[in-house]
């Protein structure tokens, strides 16, 4: 094919004409047909689009307006500008909740990722009854959190519960897993890791499965150790999935209301209160809709920033 013929073919392609076509411009009738077709398309899509906008945008706008008012669940209240936001960031409870949200999220994301990745690597090796093992490992994620929280409450709540009895037998004394503020924080973080690692295991398993085996064989030929293979091949190769799972788990952790509320209710003495639990108690226990929604909005802004940073990281990985 000569250069001229290639250029000609490209021109045809740009004008929407197939390489083998006649090259004649589309007729008026054809254009009208396409216009009618696209109009029908818009007509059919529009109801869904309107519904989506109403379902998603309307509540967000309404909530945004609520955060600027001093109403409660029954009345809209008066416009107070940014007072709710200012008042909330001036309370120690907000900063305590924000601090614990960070801790809870960091432990939840990286704890579940480390365990999930470890198990995903383990499940790549041939182990007896691997399928059963996989299903059992998925249970904490599959079981409804209400059931999990009730089970954990049974495990740790009273001095006669199995884990306090075990701690007593080990000479650790009367360990108050939920009643001691620090231990309660540890307990809810561990609970979060426990219910989240199967998700990470699934994400990492699928990422590991997509890595070309030839890369590992080549590294073996080059004499790479297992540690070097993991650090310089496995981790970079699964980094895209890792970042995506971190984004998702960050959102899951920051927005996780039931795990904490069912296990401790945010107590004792607010020690396990995260921002989402604080937002709930502000709106539904104290009937302060404006400040509660303001907390939720601030959470959303922070989540969007975190997600944006991590998405950029993903794009960087794609470019590299």
């Amino acid at each position, binding site marked *: 094919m000569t250069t001229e013929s290639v250029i000609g073919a490209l021109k045809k392609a740009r004008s929407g004409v197939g390489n083998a076509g006649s090259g004649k411009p589309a007729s008026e009738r054809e254009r009208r047909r396409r216009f009618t077709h696209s109009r029908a398309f818009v007509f059919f899509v529009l109801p869904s689009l309107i519904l989506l906008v109403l379902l998603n945008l309307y509540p967000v706008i309404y909530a945004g307006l609520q955060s600027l008012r001093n109403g*409660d*669940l*029954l*009345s809209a209240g008066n416009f107070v500008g940014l007072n709710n936001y200012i008042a909330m960031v001036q309370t120690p409870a907000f900063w305590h909740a924000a601090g614990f949200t960070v801790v809870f999220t960091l432990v939840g994301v990286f704890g579940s990722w480390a365990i999930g990745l470890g198990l995903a690597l383990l499940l790549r090796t041939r182990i007896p009854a691997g399928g059963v093992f996989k299903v059992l490992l998925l249970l904490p994620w599959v079981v409804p959190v209400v059931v999990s929280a009730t089970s954990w*409450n049974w495990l740790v*709540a*009273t*001095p*006669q519960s199995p884990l306090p009895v075990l701690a007593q037998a080990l000479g650790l004394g*009367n360990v*108050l897993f*939920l*009643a001691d*503020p620090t231990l*309660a924080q540890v307990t809810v973080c561990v609970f979060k890791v426990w219910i989240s690692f199967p998700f990470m295991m699934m994400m990492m398993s699928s990422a590991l499965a997509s890595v070309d085996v030839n890369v590992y064989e080549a590294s073996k030929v080059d004499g790479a150790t297992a540690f070097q293979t993991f650090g310089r091949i496995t981790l970079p190769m699964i980094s895209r999935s890792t970042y995506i799972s971190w984004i998702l788990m960050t959102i899951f952790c920051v927005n996780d209301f039931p795990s904490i*509320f*069912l*296990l*401790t*209710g*945010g*107590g*004792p*003495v*607010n020690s396990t209160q995260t921002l989402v639990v604080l937002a709930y*108690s*502000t709106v*539904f*226990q*104290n*009937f*302060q809709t404006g400040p509660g929604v303001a907390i939720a909005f601030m959470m959303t802004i922070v989540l969007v920033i975190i997600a944006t940073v991590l998405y950029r990281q993903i794009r960087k990985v794609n470019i590299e």
Partner: protein
Amino acid sequence: MASQSTGSSFSRRGFLGIAGGVAATAALAACSTGGGSGGSAKAIKFWNMPWGGTEFNPLDKKITVAYKPKSGMGAATYQEIQWANFTQTFSSAVASNTGPAVSSGGGTQAFQFAEQGKIAYADNLIDSWKKNGIYDDFFDGLVDTLKTDKGYAAVPYNLDVRISWYNKTLMQEAGVESPTDWDSYRNVCAALKKNGVYGFGLGSGAGSFTGSHILTAFMINNGGGLFNADKKPDCVTPENIEAMDFILDLVKSGYSDPASATYTSANVQSQWKAKKFGFGWDGAGLAAGAVGDVAGDLVVGSPLTSPSGKKGGLYFPNNIMMYKNTPSQAGSEAFLTYYYQNMKELWTKKTGIGLPPLKSISETPEFQADPNNVKIIKEWQPIFKTWAAPGGSGLFYNIANTVDGTAPMITFAQTILGGNTTSKAALTALQTSMEGLMK
């Protein structure tokens, strides 16, 4: 071809025509009155909560729909409303004028809706009940707990109470009898502790507000409480400090379960069942709960006399309210009169609803058959006070958003039960939080 034929017969125009017809039919159906409305008058919508076990609502519905209105008045329809998100259910329905004409609900709900101008005050109804005998049938002072400056926001329906319970076998084993005052109560706790049993049994964990109720009950028992006569928070008083000092002493002496600050209702019941609680504080339904074989050993204690020489306790008069959004105010009142004259079975058939508001129900043989219930009515009911104590007896709007299941109350209870505070510090923090929530 068949497909082409179908396509041409089911045109877009035809489709829009059918859709329009369906929408019009649905709209007409929605606008029409329900089948149970009876005649031309619109039905009175009655919304009630699941106050008891599974048998409560079916029986309640049966009583409701059996209402035969006088000529020109509407019949009653029944809707069970779940406790989950009930505040949102009521607020959205009332705001959109699609709510009930008559309903029960949260204990302080009537005062919140009254503040919004949505409640039809029950003064006329109360006046009519003074003539037909229903008013005199209420326990003394009960109706007035629902009286506001503008009128009666609601009428009493069932009583949720906070009382003491003990396990008679564990008490016998400890060689003690039911206490009568704070000192003898402390002695009971000490005796029970020797047997590895807790004497100050309660819970204040996730979803459990009982702990904060009990602490408030001790303040009221000592002549204190949370609100003054101006309906303003007044927590840091000598009576309250003395009461909380007493509780802190019980906690620090090891008479309370160290994990109780985070106990749910289920945890509390499991501790009674495990015979770890020998004496404690709960609602009237404790023995009927999941306490296993211990149920038969559980006995209601007598009210304690405080160092101030006073007695007192905390109760929550759950109530029924009428809304302005009704097809007929006279119809709402007529239905409620019928309902109160016929609701006895909800107690005599033991549906699990709280204690009755009417003396006549408490005098029935079925109710008298339970000695614990009889003791509550005889010894506790006369000394009960509401959240409004010591300033008054009538509930009011700010109670809902300052103390009734609010976060500061839970924090206060958990702080006291944790034992690492002073009474004054905890009460001051509570006062500050309540002032912040006042509207």
